């Protein structure tokens, strides 16, 4: 390719220098034009298909309405719900877009993201992406004291420390629930939520 390029330059250099520039820029312009065209169209068609993170974000929002936290997790009856997202910018951005003007139980919704455990302040739901799962052991110790509803996305199912785990089943987003962990963290989940779960882990006596 490089050799070809050199040959072409030496061949055209006799004609005029500006010709070379135009012919090169023409190629570039055409390339960019095509790329924009292709991407433009695909971005349009795009929205007809749903992406996993969009549904996960919508579900995280829904979970707020089907869960209840100890009273001491709210400063007053209007203080906001807080969702903290660990390591999933796509879900965080989507949440920020969709919950802006939403209210559940007279509470507005705040979205935070955190790169480490120390940055999780006062969250009600903590979403832990698959690549941040290594934080779970430390996070679950914190969750027992602060009643975090920990949501994960492990492809194999519930992981120690998580209450709800997203899982793709037949190209759909489903979730597993651990009532054991929910009890440990002091969170109650509504029967509506349980009825949609793929599987429920309960304490056996």
């Amino acid at each position, binding site marked *: 390719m490089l050799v070809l390029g050199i040959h072409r330059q030496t061949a055209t250099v006799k004609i005029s220098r500006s010709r070379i520039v135009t012919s090169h820029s023409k190629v570039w312009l055409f390339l960019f034009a095509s790329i924009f065209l292709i991407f433009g169209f695909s*971005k349009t068609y795009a929205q007809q298909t749903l992406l996993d993170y969009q549904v996960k974000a919508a579900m995280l929002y829904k979970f707020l309405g089907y869960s209840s936290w100890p009273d001491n997790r709210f400063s007053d009856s209007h203080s906001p719900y807080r969702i903290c997202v660990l390591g999933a910018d796509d879900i965080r951005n989507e949440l920020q877009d969709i919950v802006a003007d939403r209210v559940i139980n007279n509470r507005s919704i705040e979205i935070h993201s955190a790169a480490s455990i120390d940055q999780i302040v006062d969250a009600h739901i903590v979403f832990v992406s698959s690549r941040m799962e290594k934080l779970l052991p430390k996070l679950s110790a914190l969750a027992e004291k602060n009643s975090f509803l920990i949501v994960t996305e492990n492809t194999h199912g519930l992981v120690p420390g998580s209450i709800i785990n997203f899982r793709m089943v037949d190209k759909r987003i489903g979730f597993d629930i651990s009532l054991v962990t929910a009890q440990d963290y002091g969170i109650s989940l509504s029967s509506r939520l349980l009825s949609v779960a793929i599987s429920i882990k309960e304490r056996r006596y």
Partner: protein
Amino acid sequence: MKTSSNHSVYSSAGRIFLSTTTWAIALFVACANAESRQHSLLDLSLEELASLPVISVSKSAKPVSDSSASIFLITGNDIRKAGAASLPEALRLAPNLQVAQVDARNYAITARGFNNPFENKLLVMIDGRTVYSPLFSGVYWDAQDVVLEDLERIEVVSGSGGTLWGANAVNGVVNIVTRSAEDTQGTLVSVSGSDHERYASTRYGGSLGNGYYRVYVKHAQHEDTQTENGFSTDTGFKRDQAGFRMDWSRGIDTFTLQGDAYSGRLQQRGTNDIEISGANILTRGSLQFSSGSTLSLQAYIDHTQRDQPNAFAQNMNTLDIEIQHQLAMGNRQSIVWGAGYRYITDRIDNEQNFAFLPDDVNMSWKNIFVQDEISVAENIKLTLGSKWENNPYTGLEAMPGMKLGWKPDPTKLVWANLSRAVRSPSRIDRDLYAPTNPPVVNDIPQYSIAGGPNFVSEIANVFELGYRSQPVARVSWSITAFYSEYDKLRTLELNTPAPGLVFKNMAEADTYGMEVWGSWQIFSDWRLHGGLAVQKIDVTLKPGSMDLSNTTGLANGDPDYSWMLRSEYNVSDRIEINSMLRYVDKVDGFNLPAYTALDIHLSWEVTSSLQLSLVGQNLLGEHTEFGTAPGRSEFEPGVFAKLVWSL
């Protein structure tokens, strides 16, 4: 001329206008759609949300449990638990690799046989950058390094990977992946060593606008090893390396810019030190479209210098560009296609004993590949693909492959793989002459080695059958059986009627064997891993072959089997005891005895930011790993200590 030139400017301006307009409209429609979708999604019930078909665009790699290949994953955590001292040592964790330390700085690493330090059938990449040398199709392990704490994972694929990765991925692919800069924030200082090796590294990671960066420096040094009869091998080294990585993401699109530079001095018996240096810069972008398709682009420039007294001085520059597009076609097909271009300038200053001729070459490789994964039935996937690579020696080579994967239930996978792999010639096969200035008799230079003017690509046809299962959450295991037919393997033959010897392709081989591994979480604080590789390598020379290459040539360095057992035990939240017991069978070609090695690693998290490790190495006594007596290196019991401080 002028008119036509102007015309073309107008027409391209017209195209630009058209495309910009289209794009603007597209964007508007997209935004409008997005707006209505956001509201409609939230107004759906949970049941309705759970019933919507979605496309997964998650950045996490496809789970290993779904791959129809003999792939073993070494995670960053595995490396930490093993207390591995260096990159080649970390590779010992993969049961499907043969790792033999030759001396202080040389390793012989391969999968499925043909092992030696000039091994040429394994493709190794660090963050997508190929690190094998086109001089001999092998890896200079003494010039490769990473900060081990910043490793995300090492994917080890044994078997042919040619359909996706191209030539050289004949017996396996090692894909070393460092962590995103986002995951390596803050300061990390790591100091480690024993009485014969020392490492120190510092990394700092921070954020930059809407992205993240890290910078690091690392020093490594190793004393000479001792031979069985008590002499120094004079193979110690010192090496310094520095680098950076920057990662940005915008929604689901990612962009990476990274680079490294190193310089080192390696000892060599009887000469001045070998001086090595190099630098690389790599950029990679991945755009994911809501239609589910992904476009990845990668480009890098790599500079390598190696001044090896009494051998050669090499100055090599590589430019490599790759594009890959993944898209779904209908509900049943997922297509990946791509193209690549590599351009290398290689300048060699030859010395007396041997020469690479011509000494200066410019070479290019071009490739295209396409792979189609077809869902034949609900739980059966058929993957068809091929790569076509044009190399400077033999022209176009095809590397087709076919895979079949069947998941009888989500916890089991049965797979079969049929593929053709190619090792295209490297400079050592074609351009190696000795001595550099031969006597000339009757106008004919009297070379003792006269290159390999007719050397062509080595070929392997590989068949694999595998089963992977996770019967219960605590147990997972995998077994692969393989059979490969190699043809046109390199031999050294008489150059009749001219004098000397030339490289030809006059050997063939059959190899077969199996690889088994598994892990068992016995209690929540105790996990066991086991692995076994068994192989049989039958090499036959074709009629008329004299093969005089002896130990540098065919399969002399391979054990029939090896196994390993790893235990990970958490004594408490802060103390772990991890150990690895491994056995490597005797190597007949070298009259090398079998050995068993035991390493025990005690790790103590003193505070959340300070970790202290002690590794007892080779606790069962000394052993040798490669080569013939009495000049081969012997590895003795020792204590390796490591301190990692993170802020």
